[in-house]
């Protein structure tokens, strides 16, 4: 409706039809792209806002270029338009929900919004009315105020090319809030291993985020999600996020920081007292305690499926257990503490302690074995 009103107004004022076409066409084109991106309420709000914002320029231009008679005519139209606008705005303020609060998610830090993206990042601001209902955010303006210079568009698209902090002003009409933006661009995230857990145990999600100079980035904002939460779950830990084993099985864990993503496989094992009789698809964990120069061994039964065999240290301790498998064809997995093996005949798994370890102290850990499912 606002489009046809604006069109009639331009026509009444005697604006060149081609010029009116260009203005109305631009509004229609941007409205249609906002309709797809933000939904109809937000797009309509933007159109009204933009039309009202543009009207004074167009009217002044018409008055400036027109004859005296036309100027008087246009002035009359302007007065009428001003009355209509005032009444419309009053109706809008009564009939619609008004923005009351701008809310910025805090990200991973209590003190500001952490941005790890290299690509332009949209500052996520939510507009709420006085009852706490979410409103379309059309018209929110963003402005750099102080700190590290960083480009930000009026629509809130910011580019973090180097580490640093900046203060931004986020405003919508009379609403104004200050935002501390903490740029910590992450160029890569890495993880060197599969995650092996005994049911009930938890470890920090093992990954490393690095900057352009390959230095660790510790201030991170992102998402860690688990594919099958019946096997393992992700929870908040003292330092970061923990992954906890819930039930025997395998699943995947996705880490997303900035524009970077990483996948890790997670294997959860049930505690058992022997690996004899392990079935296809079964994940078992056997406690290992080594004193002095002890070596323990177990038989790995011949099977058409493959095995994944690993030694897991207790807690966050350094892994001092070592593996050797005799009688099976094995290839190292992602680290020196695990192997993929094919045992066409019965094989033997040996667990011994690292030569670097203190021989007088007891070494504790777990032997984890996953017999893969039949194809």
């Amino acid at each position, binding site marked *: 409706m606002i489009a046809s009103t604006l069109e009639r107004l331009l026509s009444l004022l005697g604006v060149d039809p081609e010029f009116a*076409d*260009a203005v109305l066409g631009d509004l229609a084109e941007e409205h249609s792209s906002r309709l797809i991106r933000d939904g109809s309420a937000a797009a309509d709000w933007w159109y009204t806002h933009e039309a009202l914002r*543009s009207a004074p320029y167009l009217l*002044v*231009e018409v008055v400036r270029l027109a004859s005296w008679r036309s100027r008087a005519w246009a002035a009359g139209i302007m007065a009428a338009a001003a009355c209509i606008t005032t009444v419309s705005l009053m109706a809008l303020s009564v009939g619609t929900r008004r923005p009351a609060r701008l809310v910025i998610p805090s990200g991973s830090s209590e003190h500001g919004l952490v941005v790890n993206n290299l690509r332009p990042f949209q500052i996520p601001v939510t507009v709420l009315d006085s009852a706490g209902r979410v409103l379309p955010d059309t018209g929110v303006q963003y402005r750099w105020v102080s700190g590290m210079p960083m480009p930000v568009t009026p*629509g809130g698209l910011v580019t973090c090319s180097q580490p640093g902090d900046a203060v931004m002003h986020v405003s919508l009409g009379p609403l104004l809030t200050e935002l501390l933006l903490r740029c910590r661009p992450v160029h890569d995230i890495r993880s060197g291993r599969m995650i092996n857990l005994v049911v009930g145990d938890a470890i920090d999600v093992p990954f490393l985020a690095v900057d352009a100079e390959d230095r660790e980035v510790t201030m991170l904002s992102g998402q860690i999600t688990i594919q099958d939460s019946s096997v393992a779950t992700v929870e908040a830990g003292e330092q970061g996020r923990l992954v906890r084993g819930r039930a025997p099985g395998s699943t995947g864990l996705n880490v997303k920081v900035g524009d970077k993503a990483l996948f890790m496989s997670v294997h959860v094992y049930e505690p058992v007292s022997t690996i004899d009789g392990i079935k296809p698809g079964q994940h078992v964990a056997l406690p290992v305690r080594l004193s002095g120069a002890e070596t323990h061994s177990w038989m790995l039964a011949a099977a058409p499926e493959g095995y994944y065999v690993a030694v897991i240290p207790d807690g966050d301790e350094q892994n001092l257990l070592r593996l050797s498998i005799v009688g099976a064809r094995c290839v190292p997995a992602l680290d020196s503490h695990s192997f993929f093996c094919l045992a066409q005949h019965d094989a033997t798994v040996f667990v011994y302690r690292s030569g670097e370890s203190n021989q007088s102290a007891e070494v504790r850990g777990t032997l984890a074995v996953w017999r893969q499912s039949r194809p």
Partner: protein
Amino acid sequence: MTNTKLGTLELAAMLAVARLASNAYGLAVRKDLAERTGRDLSVGALYTTLGRLEKKGFLISRTSEPTPVRGGRSRRMYQVTSAGAQAIREAEQHSVSIWAGLGSPIIPETT
């Protein structure tokens, strides 16, 4: 007499039209200006600026074929004229000359 000087916004709009070449129409120019200058001009403000530049002879325009995404309306495509190109060059030279000789950082006067 035609004013051959370019204001800051006029110069930015002229440069945007020059950069966008065959795709220089209102919406594209407005987005380009928003990205480069951080100014979110209203459609009305932009078209009055482009109209003024056209009146000065620095831009010419033509209308494109109507498109469905614009509700069956045409785009007004802008192009820099030779007078416009000359005005851009003069603005650049003017800028260079007023910056010339300033080889060190500007230090504010202390009181």
